[in-house]
C-alpha cells in the first residue's frame, strides 16, 4: 500500500511541476496580443493543408486489435512466472496449453497475411 502512496505523490509532484511551469510563465511572462494567426494549430511552421480528423485505413485497427490480444496473453503469463515454483508441472502444462491455443491464432494470422502491411 505504501509503495502506491509513493506513486501517488510522484503523480502529484509531476502535475505540480507541469502546472506550475505553465502558471508561472502565464503570470510573469509577457502576454502578446492574441491574433488569428497565433491561435492556429502549429504544424512545423507550415500552413495546415487539411483538417486533422481524416478517415483511417482499417488496417491500423487490425494491427491494434492483434496487439491487444497478444498484450493480454503476456499479462496472463506474468502471474505464471511470478508463481512458477508453486504451481509446478500442473501450471506449466496449463500455461503451455494456453500458449498453444494462441499460437494457432498467430499461425492463422501469419498465413492470412495479417502481419504484412501491403
Amino acid at each position: 500500500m505504501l509503495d502506491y502512496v509513493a506513486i501517488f505523490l510522484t503523480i502529484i509532484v509531476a502535475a505540480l511541476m507541469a502546472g506550475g511551469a505553465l502558471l508561472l510563465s502565464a503570470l510573469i511572462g509577457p502576454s502578446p496580443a492574441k491574433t488569428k494567426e497565433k491561435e492556429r494549430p502549429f504544424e512545423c511552421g507550415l500552413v495546415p493543408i487539411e483538417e486533422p480528423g481524416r478517415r483511417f485505413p482499417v488496417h491500423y485497427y487490425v494491427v491494434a486489435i492483434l496487439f491487444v490480444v497478444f498484450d493480454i496473453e503476456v499479462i496472463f503469463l506474468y502471474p505464471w512466472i511470478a508463481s512458477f515454483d508453486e504451481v509446478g508441472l500442473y501450471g506449466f502444462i496449463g500455461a503451455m496449453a494456453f500458449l498453444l491455443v494462441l499460437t494457432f491464432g498467430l499461425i492463422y494470422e501469419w498465413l492470412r497475411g495479417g502481419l504484412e502491411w501491403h
Partner: protein
Amino acid sequence: MAEQIFFYFFAALSIVSAFLAVTRKNPVVSVVWLISCMFSLAVIYVILSAFFLAAVQVIVYAGAILMLFVFVIMMLNLKTGMVGQLRNLGLKFVGLIAALLILRQFYSAIKGAGAMTGLPPRAAAGFGEAAAVGKLLYSQYIYPLELMAVLLLVAIVGALVLAGKEQS
C-alpha cells in the same frame, strides 16, 4: 482514514469521469474522460489490495483498450456532434433496460453490504500480487484460463475475418 479519503476522492472522480464520458459531444474528449475513469478504478483496486488487477487495469484498459476506442473513432471519422444523431429510439430503449438491470445489481449489492457488520477481514500478506494471482489462476482456475485462450483466439480470427485482407 487515509484509505477512506482516497476511496471517496477516486470513487467520486470515477463517477464524474464516467458521466462526462457519456455526455460529451466530441467522442475524442469522451475517450479522455474514460481514461480518467479507468485510472480512478485502478486506484480503487489498489485500496482493495488487488495490486495485480490495478496494474493490469492501467496497462490494458487505460492503455491498450482505450487506444482501440480512439482507432474506432478515427476509423468512423466521427466529428463533434455526430454521436447525438446516432442515438435513436431503439438504442435509448436498450440503454434504459441496461440501466434498470444495473440499478437492480446496485440495489442487491448495497443490501448485501448493509448486512455486513464489524471490521472487514484483513488481507493476507502478498494478497492480490502477481504471485498470489498466478497461484490461483494456474491451479484452481486453469479451466477458465484455457477458455480465455479460446476467447482470445476468437478475437484474433474475428478481427482478421472482419477487417483483414481478402484471402487470395
